[in-house]
């Protein structure tokens, strides 16, 4: 039933062709809109809501080849299936259309039976692609999903400059023991929802969830304008959200949550690790270890947010911080300069 009731756009400068195609498609149960050149077609597609484009090649203002090029370059539109309907002669035109991303090529005058079959198959392919996209987005973050859709999947790393954040819930074991399992999972889900919101709205990517903790990256896989500032702002939002959550919990007579956040900036090796069947986007390197150690240190320091010197320097005074001096951290040969965000 995938081919029933789709929204289709017909782009053709020739009125007879346009009317006839629209008629055939309407008789097949679709909703049809038409555009008389490529420029108008693109505008309509950008307006959203179309499941498929039927594209003529020879049009004034912007021809079909140009439309295909623009669609391929547009992440929002690149997945809209395109069936080329043309009477241009020569196989080279067909090849060029397919190379530019067209799904199919139908010669004019278009045979209605063939048209129906091709549209059904294109819409079905699109449905599968959409399903796959939704699945990827559920198990990765939208930034990783976008990176995958743009670059495809390949195991292997690259060096990137990024800011890494670790965060976990303080004293979570005690909370788990004081309540039922359903309540614990519900609390974790609420907590993750709030943390994800704070992190992704600053352009960060949560790439690991480990029990009551998470790891996030700012600056990879997609670039962020100012990763250290974005990470610290996200951390401040996270603390604020925990404050709101605690106000609710207090009203219900429940114990308050406390979180610790460690942030470090520097070079990391980022990429997909795992096997071809199951892989995850992650970052490794000294910067990652340092962020994890800083997070662990928040408890002793009695501070919510700790960062390394590189992050603090990059803030350039835009967030108030306080130097805590050099601290011996586990796994670090030399003491490390630690800074805390000044509360308030």
């Amino acid at each position: 039933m995938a081919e029933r009731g789709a929204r289709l756009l017909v782009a053709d400068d020739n009125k007879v062709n346009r009317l006839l195609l629209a008629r055939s498609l309407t008789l097949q149960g679709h909703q049809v809109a038409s555009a008389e050149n490529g420029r108008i077609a693109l505008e309509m597609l950008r307006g959203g809501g179309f499941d498929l484009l039927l594209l003529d090649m020879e049009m004034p203002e912007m021809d079909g080849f140009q439309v295909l090029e623009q669609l391929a370059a547009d992440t929002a539109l690149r997945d809209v299936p395109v069936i080329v309907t043309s009477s241009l002669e020569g196989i080279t035109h067909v090849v060029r259309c397919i190379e530019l991303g067209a799904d199919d090529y139908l010669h004019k005058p278009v045979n209605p039976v063939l048209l129906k079959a091709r549209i059904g198959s294109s819409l079905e392919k699109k449905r599968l692609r959409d399903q796959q996209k939704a699945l990827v987005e559920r198990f990765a973050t939208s930034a990783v999903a976008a990176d995958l859709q743009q670059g495809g999947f390949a195991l292997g790393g690259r060096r990137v400059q990024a800011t890494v954040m670790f965060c976990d819930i303080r004293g979570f074991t005690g909370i788990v023991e004081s309540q039922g399992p359903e309540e614990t999972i519900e609390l974790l889900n609420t907590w993750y929802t709030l943390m994800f919101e704070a992190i992704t709205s600053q352009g960060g990517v949560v790439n690991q969830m480990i029990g009551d903790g998470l790891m996030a990256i700012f600056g990879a896989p997609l670039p962020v304008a100012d990763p250290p500032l974005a990470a610290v702002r996200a951390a401040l939002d996270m603390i604020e959200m925990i404050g709101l959550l605690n106000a609710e919990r207090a009203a219900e007579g429940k114990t308050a949550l406390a979180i610790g956040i460690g942030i470090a900036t520097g070079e990391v090796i980022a990429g997909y690790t795992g096997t071809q069947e199951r892989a995850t986007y992650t970052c490794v390197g000294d910067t990652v270890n340092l962020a994890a150690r800083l997070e662990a240190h928040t408890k002793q320091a009695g501070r919510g947010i700790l960062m390394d010197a590189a992050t603090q320097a990059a803030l350039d005074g835009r967030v108030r911080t306080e130097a805590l001096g050099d601290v011996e951290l586990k796994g670090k040969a030399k003491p490390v300069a630690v800074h805390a965000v000044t509360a308030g």
Partner: protein
Amino acid sequence: MPDPIDRTIFGELQDSAGADFVVELVGTFFEEAPRMIADLRSALAAGDGERFRRAAHSLKTNAHTFGATVLGAQARGLELGGLPSDASGIDALQSLYDSAAAALQELTRG
């Protein structure tokens, strides 16, 4: 002289799109085709080969839609032949269009 309209193709068009709709579509073709032929003439006068080819291409496509195969073949010749040295090909096209139009008129008369 062969039938200007291939009845089989025209019949298939009526079956798939609906006879009433085909009446409207023929009406649209009668509005558009003379413009395309005029376009051929002005493109020839201006020495604009690309515009000439496009107009011939459009006419070819529409002719084949209605089963006007002889007209379509003449338009195809113009499309692929480059800018001609004189208007004789267009004149021939015009007379083929006239007979195709007369036959279409006959076929769509309610």
